[in-house]
């Protein structure tokens, strides 16, 4: 609440200097705060010291910061946290015992267990003195001990607390490159890999590199994970939306992308890159191979960089779809480094490992010149390096236990257990949403979310208007108040104007799902009873 209030207040205080907001479609306005963007010329006289404005206040901080939004941890979450405190100090004050955070892809916060092998290796690397103790062999699996030694051996001086090479430890990048090659069947180069504190900082780096001014645009899917809209705003660029087609399971249609590209260009925007999230977030669709080939051809023709967010590559729940990396697709089409610039993002936060708190991830960059690579390296070096533990974990994720390893069977059990459970939860919740009056929900083919559409009655829309809030935000708020379930309103991700959605994760543990479903149904019935036309 405070955040939205602050942003609103600030909008009145800041003078708009120019107003070329792109694109014309109103949905984009859902993505950026309703203040107009700001030119980069000075807005204050030189002699600031004589005014009463304190040096750092919303009146004079970077306007791009005021402009950017990130709903995943936005207003609804702040409300939820307040309710949680209320519940703690005053149990029984609400019709529910706990807040269920279904707003964020944070599996381990909802009871998912980490993969044992990975944690064994990390613990040994965190405290290598353990490797010299006899008891260690009784407590740790032998292949974890082995792997820890191998990792320590690629670290200069076995110093796990030292800053590493700014792209990440070379030996770990070699392992990751090998993992990528094994996955795709095409070679990968350790020098193309930049290990980062999660995939998000890598996305920021690319936006920083690509965006010179608001005349530079980035094509983004709508709905999208709002890291993209936020980082584009933060770096002063323009988001060029292309709509995914809800009617066809959130299909990516090239005709739509082409249309938006031409529209942007006609308005003087230089479109620099295309973001594609595969599997999709919040939409969960997995792209078909020929779809991917179309996209690659298109980007090659138009000179666009492909920014392929592939963090959910291990989260696929349908048998008729498989994950194919964009690099694999491009290479299989015969396209090499000279043909297409491609950045692939991967993370340790998702998949079946769900290690969000570790902040591990990388980007693999191919198809750009040595000069540009130098620039990226330079930017990475200012922050010295990403956290070492996260780097190690990234190398484990891309090189898990193999058949014959001591931990292989238990690893497979843990992995399959988690993935099968996710698939079941995806199905159950999808069915639950579809059973609700006026709600349609596409299948979650992958990722961790459901994005049901709410066909809200007129009365509800009016009530939202009166409360000066978006209808899906009203629904989400009411849902929270009645059930303790926290979801993110669709307006946080972008949607076709006049349509409303919520994003709900599939992450609560399976034993909680029946209660969630029944509470959801109960709430919805009451909501519709109140607002039905």
């Amino acid at each position, binding site marked *: 609440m405070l955040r939205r209030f602050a942003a609103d207040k600030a909008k009145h205080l800041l003078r708009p200097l120019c107003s070329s907001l792109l694109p014309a479609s109103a949905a984009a306005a859902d993505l950026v705060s309703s203040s107009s963007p700001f030119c980069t010329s000075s807005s204050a006289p030189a002699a600031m010291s004589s005014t009463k404005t304190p040096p750092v206040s919303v009146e004079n*901080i970077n306007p791009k*910061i005021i402009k950017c939004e990130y709903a995943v941890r936005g207003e609804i979450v702040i409300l939820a946290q307040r309710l949680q405190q209320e519940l703690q100090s005053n149990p029984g004050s609400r019709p529910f015992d706990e807040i269920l955070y279904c707003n964020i892809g944070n599996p381990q916060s909802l009871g998912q267990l980490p993969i044992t092998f990975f944690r064994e290796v990390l613990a040994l690397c965190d405290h290598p003195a353990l490797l010299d103790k006899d008891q260690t062999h009784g407590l740790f699996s032998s292949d974890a001990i082995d792997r820890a030694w191998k990792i320590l051996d690629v670290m200069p001086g076995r110093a796990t607390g030292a800053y590493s090479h700014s792209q990440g430890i070379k030996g770990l990048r070699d392992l990751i490159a090998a993992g990528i090659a094994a996955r795709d069947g095409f070679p990968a180069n350790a020098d193309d890999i930049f290990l980062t504190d999660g995939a998000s900082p890598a996305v920021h780096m690319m936006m920083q590199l690509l965006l010179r001014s608001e005349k530079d645009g980035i094509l983004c899917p709508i709905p999208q994970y709002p890291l993209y809209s936020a980082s584009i705003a*933060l770096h002063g660029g323009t988001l060029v939306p292309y709509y995914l087609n809800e009617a066809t399971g959130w299909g990516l249609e090239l005709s739509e992308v082409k249309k938006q590209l031409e529209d942007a260009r006609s308005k003087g925007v230089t479109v620099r890159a295309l973001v594609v999230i595969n599997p999709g977030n919040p939409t969960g669709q997995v792209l078909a191979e020929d779809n991917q080939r179309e996209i690659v051809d298109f980007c090659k023709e138009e000179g666009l960089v492909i920014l392929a967010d592939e963090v959910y590559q291990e989260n696929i729940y349908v048998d008729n779809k498989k994950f194919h990396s964009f690099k694999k697709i491009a290479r299989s089409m015969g396209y090499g480094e000279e043909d297409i610039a491609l950045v692939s993002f991967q993370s340790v936060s998702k998949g079946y490992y769900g290690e969000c708190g570790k902040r591990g991830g990388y980007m693999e960059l191919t198809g750009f010149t040595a000069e540009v690579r130098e620039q990226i390296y330079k930017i990475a070096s200012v922050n010295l390096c990403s956290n070492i533990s996260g780097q190690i974990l990234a190398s484990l994720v891309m090189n898990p236990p193999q058949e014959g390893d001591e931990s292989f069977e238990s690893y497979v059990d843990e992995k399959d257990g988690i993935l099968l459970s996710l698939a079941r939860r995806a199905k159950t919740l999808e069915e639950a949403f579809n059973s609700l009056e006026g709600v349609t929900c596409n299948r979650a083919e992958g990722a961790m979310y459901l994005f049901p559409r709410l066909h809200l009655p007129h009365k509800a829309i009016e009530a939202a208007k009166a409360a000066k809030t978006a209808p899906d935000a009203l629904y989400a708020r009411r849902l929270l108040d009645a059930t303790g379930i926290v979801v993110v309103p669709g307006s946080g991700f972008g949607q076709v104007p006049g349509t409303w959605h919520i994003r709900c994760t599939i992450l609560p543990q399976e034993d909680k799902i029946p209660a969630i479903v029944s509470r959801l149904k109960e709430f919805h019935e009451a909501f519709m009873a109140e607002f039905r036309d």
Partner: protein
Amino acid sequence: MSRGLDYEVINENVKRVAYAVRGELYLRASELQKEGKKIIFTNVGNPHALGQKPLTFPRQVVALCQAPFLLDDPHVGMMFPSDAIERARHYLSLTSGGLGAYSDSRGLPGIRKEVAEFIERRDGYPSDPELIYLTDGASKGVMQMLNTIIRNDKDGILVPVPQYPLYSAAISLFGGSLVPYHLEETANWGLDINNLRQSLNEARMNGITVRAMVIINPGNPTGQCLSEANIREILKFCYQQKLVLLADEVYQQNIYQDERPFISSRKILLGMGPPFSKEVQLVSFHTVSKGYWGECGQRGGYFEMTNIPLKTVDEIYKVASISLSPNVPGQIFLGLMVNPPKPGDISYSKFVTESKAILDSLRKRAHIMTNGFNSCRNVVCNFTEGAMYSFPQIKLPPKAIEAAKKAGKVPDVFYCLKLLEATGISTVPGSGFGQKEGVFHLRTTILPAEEDMPAIMDSFKKFNDEFMEQYDDKKGYSRM
């Protein structure tokens, strides 16, 4: 048509960034290392890379947090001391799902509370956990602050010269203006308020709105520890000129003289009482990378905000939330740093022994290095009062400067490259930090192991004195 990532069409601000710490010298050193040459990397404050061992207690705690199944094992007591086990349970209880869950975007509330308690013990004034944000290293916090402050190239940030080039790099990246204020080498790198005033006025005359001032205390690369009077002057200056003070205090545990112990800027500010204590905006930075911990690779740090309007804090929170959360193990390291073993704890004496050994040795090495440099021809070196670096002035003869020009190199880069090729010692040329025109330095760290120091200083002296013999024509040489 240019393609998306062609060099000509990338962000100009990115091209403007320079970060010498991992620049030309480091890249050349890495090349030579690949070719088999033994390199001594003294280019970055990276203690563990030069043999400093991690403290035992924090590693035990984090390993247990990493693999909580250990806590359930009946034999865990044989492998870990009971206070480490207890502390691991404590930190795990502060998380919502262990190390693998995103925390609050500002950091785990329980750890921020520990940081606040540490600050209160250190300074004698209460600190609010709500105004403490944990970050993936202090650098990320600095970058966030500068990005918040800088709107365009007319916004200026006062930065000491010489400075740690994170500041110049970040200012370039965010499109702001760096307003330098010179530290006085002859006064042990002291801060002269007149220099400050002059720089500020000049900037304003050029149409720059000066928004903030950076101090690095203890200094990097210069190592000087600011006196209480100095800090008070600076705070008064910031009050008068309406500047936010960015106090980089990451080396607060690294003090090698007793005349000027570390006093936090916040303590002094609050001690000044109103109006200063209520109005001067201050952001203080700290980290687990330095001190006697040296846990650079964990990327753990925090910043504390004083007198920042809540609406601004809100915006800062919003930006932090886009990156979801700082890494949880790093947060735990931070908690352990501000809340180390206490007298009576099982691990206390070992912890103290390990810590003291490191600090005592750093103090010794600060002296060895300063004296070593001062014994070299044409080299003058201020004492390293604090931090981790030595920043000797190299008085390059005109012939050397000419030779550098011929080779297409900045003079101190030329010298440092020759030093590297001759001895394997990888330093950072002073030009990477800023220095007065015609005055040259290099930065090295005091981190090589104590037993290696004499040999390193001998090696340096041999190279330097030969270099000076070669280029000194005894007619005169560059001087301050």
